[in-house]
Structures are given as C-alpha cells and as structure tokens.
C-alpha cells in the first residue's frame, strides 16, 4: 500500500481536539468528515494514516467509515447533492425533483457527472420537513425546491 502523507492542517485539527476526549479513538467519526475535506474520500491508505493518528487499525477506520452516509467510501464529485427522499418530502413532491435533477445532470441517483462537478445522491430525512422538498448541496441547505430553485442552487455551486 502506498504510504499517504496526511494533510498538515488535518493533523493540526486532530491534535488540537484530542485533549477534549478521554480516548483518541473518540475523535474518529469527526476526523473522517474533516479528512475528506482534504483527501476527498476515505481510501485504504488514508485509513491507515488516520488509524496511526488515533491509535486504531486501518480496518477499524474503514469499518467505522462504512457505517456513516456522510463519509465517502469512493471518489465523489466536487459538489455532493443530497436530496431527501423521505416521507414529508415525498408528500411534497420530491420524486419530481429527483427526476428533474437526474435529467438536468444526465446521471442517475448515485452517479457523478462526467466533468466531475456533481455527485447526486438521495438521503434520508434532513430535518427540514416543514419546507420540503429539501436538499444539501455541499454544506448548504436548499428548501421548498422547485425545478427553478434547483437550477439556481446548482448555478450557485458552479
């Protein structure tokens, strides 16, 4: 396995936070999210580097990573679109929005556009049920979606 050098900012981020916890491994889940800001997705070599930092095995890191939906196990596009497909959004027409996004991007749910700009995934409740349909583009929440609102949101991300 190729040895991966952890981003120094990430290492600093981890070391600053370790004193807040009784064990190093406690910081694993937040570290996975932070790590993908720099390294994209959690690859086996990244898992090895994170494991070394938090006193656990690469296997443990990958196992934990595989449990959480926000942790990318494979390469994703520059912007990840997470559209809620749960009950309140369903009642307010998220199926049409999903179909619209698929058509607009030319990819099915789960896919990444050829230019690598967008990955479109469907997710469970985003706790914004009063303003469904909703989606996250990156870290930004978009509510009361219509095709026009989707157009605007994706243009913003460009």
């Amino acid at each position, binding site marked *: 396995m190729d040895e991966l050098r952890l981003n120094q900012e990430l290492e600093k981020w981890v070391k600053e936070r370790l004193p*807040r*916890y*009784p*064990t190093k*491994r*406690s*910081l*694993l*889940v*937040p570290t*996975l*999210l932070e790590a993908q800001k720099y390294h994209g997705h959690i690859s086996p070599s990244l898992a090895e580097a994170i494991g070394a930092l*938090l006193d*656990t095995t690469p296997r443990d890191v990958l*196992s*934990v990573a*595989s*449990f*959480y*939906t*926000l*942790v*990318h196990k494979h390469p994703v596009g520059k912007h990840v679109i*997470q559209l809620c*497909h*749960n*009950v*309140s959004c*369903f*009642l*307010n027409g998220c*199926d*049409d929005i*999903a*179909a619209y996004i*698929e058509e607009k991007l030319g990819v*099915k*749910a*789960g896919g990444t556009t050829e230019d690598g700009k967008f990955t479109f*995934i*469907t*997710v*469970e*409740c*985003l*706790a*914004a*049920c*009063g*303003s*469904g349909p909703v989606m*996250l583009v990156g*870290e*930004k*929440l978009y509510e009361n979606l219509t095709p026009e609102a989707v157009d605007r949101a994706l243009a913003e991300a460009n």
Partner: protein
Amino acid sequence: MLEQTKVVMRLDGVPDHHRLDVYEANGGYAALRKAVKEMKPAEVIDEVKASGLLGKGGAGFPAGLKWSFVPKDHPGPKYLACNADEGEPGTFKDRWILEHNPHQMIEGCIIAAYAVGISHIYVYCRGEFYQGKEMIRRAAEEAYAKGYLGQNILGSGFSTELTVHTGAGSYECGEETALLTSLEGGRGHPKMKPPFPASEGAWRKPTVINNVETLATVPEIINRGAAWHAGLGTEKSKGIKMVCISGHVEKPGNYEVELGVPTLAIINDLAGGMKGGRALKGFFPGGSSTPVLPAAKADVGYDYESVAAAGSMLGSGALIVFDDKTDVVRMAEVITRFYTWESCGKCTPCREGTRWMLQIYERILKGGGRLEDVDLLLSICDHLEFKSFCPFGDAAVGVVRSTINLYRDEYEDYIRNHKVYKRKFMPVKH
C-alpha cells in the same frame, strides 16, 4: 382558536436571539445564575422532578428522574450527552433550537451538569446540520468567554466543559446507547441495557443523555418554578411540546403548545388547515416511527396518554399530515426503505426483517404482489416488534401494521389488479 404556549420558542421573532447579548437582554442565563448561586445541586434535581418535565426526544421519560439515577458518590468523571442527532422523519425542532436559540439549550446543559455533577458536556450533533453545528460552536465560545462555561462558573466553584461532537449520517445514532458508541468512535450500534447509561455510559462512566428540546426547557423551569410547569398540560403529560407539522398543510412549521390540546386544532388553527382545502386522510402523530391514525381520530388530545389510547405514540412531536389523494402503499414503502437502509445491522430481526418488508413492498408496487403478502407483512411485524435489540425494530413496524389495518383495501387493490406504481426515480444507498 388555539394559541401557542411558547417556552423553548419564547424568543421566536426577536431578531438575532441566537446571539449572547440578545439572549441575555431577554433574561438569558438568569436561571443558571440562580441555580449555581442560590440552589444546591439536589434542589435543582428536585425542582425538575417536581416540574414533571418529560424527555422530548421520543420516549417521554421523566428528565429529573433520569438525573437522579446517576450515582452521587461516583469518584470519576461524569458526562452529559446532549442528543442533537435529530433524525426521526418529520422532526425538525432541534435543528430550529440549534440554529435560532442555541443559548437556551446550552444554559439547560450547564444547569443539568451542575445538578448532576458533570464535568464534560458533549453535544452530539447530526453531521448534516452544518449551520446548526456552527451556531452551537459560536454560542459555546460566547458562553466560555462570559464565564458560563469552563472553570469556576460565575464564581460558584463549579466547573464544566462543553464540546460539540459531530455525527456523520446515521439515524440509529439518535438512540441513546448507539449515540454513546458513536461518541466513542465506533459504528453506531446500540449497547445492552442494563447497565443503564446513568451508571455506565460514555467511556463506561455515568452519563446523562437528554434531548435538545428537553434541555432547552430547563432554564424556564428554574426561572418560573416547578409549579408553573406542572400546571401546564395534562395530569400525566405535564408541560409543553414543540410540534413539527409537515405534509399536506397550508402552514407547515414548528409550533409550541400545551400538551393535551386537540390535534385537529393544531392542524387547523396553527398550521392553517389542509393544503388546498383537501380532505385529511390520516396522520402520524409523532414521527415516522409512530403508527398512523385515521382522520376520524384527529380530535385526539395531543399528549402522551391520549395518543397512546388512540393507538399510537406522541414520539418526538412530529405531526405528519397526509390528504385523501395520498398513495399509502407507496408512502409505507418510502418509510420502510428508510428503516431498511438505516438499520444498523447489529441484530438479525431488524436487519433482515426490514429488508424483507422492503422487498415485499417493491414487488407489490411493481404489480407482482401476492394476496398473502399483506398477511406476510403483518407476520414479519410480529417477528420484529419487541424482538429486536433496540427500539428501532419496533419503530419500523408502526407504519406497516397501521396502514394495513386502516387501508388494507389499497394494498389489495395493488395486488388484485396488478397495479404498477410509476416510479419517477430510484433512490440509492450511499
């Protein structure tokens, strides 16, 4: 006309009340001052016990009682986990508190920590709440700078720390013991109880786990007294509740009401009635985990015992309303897919039972259902409920059984007529 009783949402409409100076100008942190300066920790617990405050994350367990289970003479550290992992479909109240009134929650956390002798508060926040995490971190920084957190709080000699901890996308981590496993760095699997977290929780130390809304109610109980709170609501469900209304209503959103008010009044007076004047078909009283109730039961009192008597649960206070045009079989499939994909996989009944139910729903919607499928679904429900490791399995059953009982003809219509649901897209598990 039903009026709201705003306690956690008392500053709704006050500009910038997420800021410390605005919160303080509106009575913020007076309760903390009162607690640490004028009350002994045991008195704070007694006050919260006497108030009748119930946990608002779903289970409705008395909060003061929970606090009192923590051993007082424990020599090592004790922890508070503030459960901000709001994920129950239909629920969006905690996100509102985190984004709009973070200080009231933090003040409640510190009072709870003082009452129980807790040295570190972890706010376990949903990973998807990017803005919420930011707001709570900023609010915590402000509270540290003002001496409400850290060493020797307000000169009382009491010290406690607060750390915001992010989740990373998992419904199960809202279950209290799974939350602890995740906080310790693991996959979000629940732990066996007993030992209960109050005696052996995070890192095997005594741990209190309270929901965001529960903690955000505490400062007003200290300010106004237990008798004020106990005088609200019903005999068995004291106090108030934030209600998240979504679905087919004119004005979906968060509202706060006295427990026991008629559900129909919440829908009509607060949420503006049914969207487009359509007819109410049914509703989930407390989130996707709670059995559906039909329109005929919409006058049920919105409190724990009345909703239970009507055959459902108050849950997290998420009122999901649907109209007469709703395809309940497809709606049940949407929710069953959620439970299938979010099942943590630790125990077989839940992991396999949910997956099996989803497969049956998929074949019914494809026009390939069998008449015996309806009873097969009910049978799987029986094998899931109370047989799973944690309450997740029970939650997955609610929508399936209740929609079959109420709308069996719609299931049979799909099956007998080989009706096909025209899918507009196929969701994926990431």
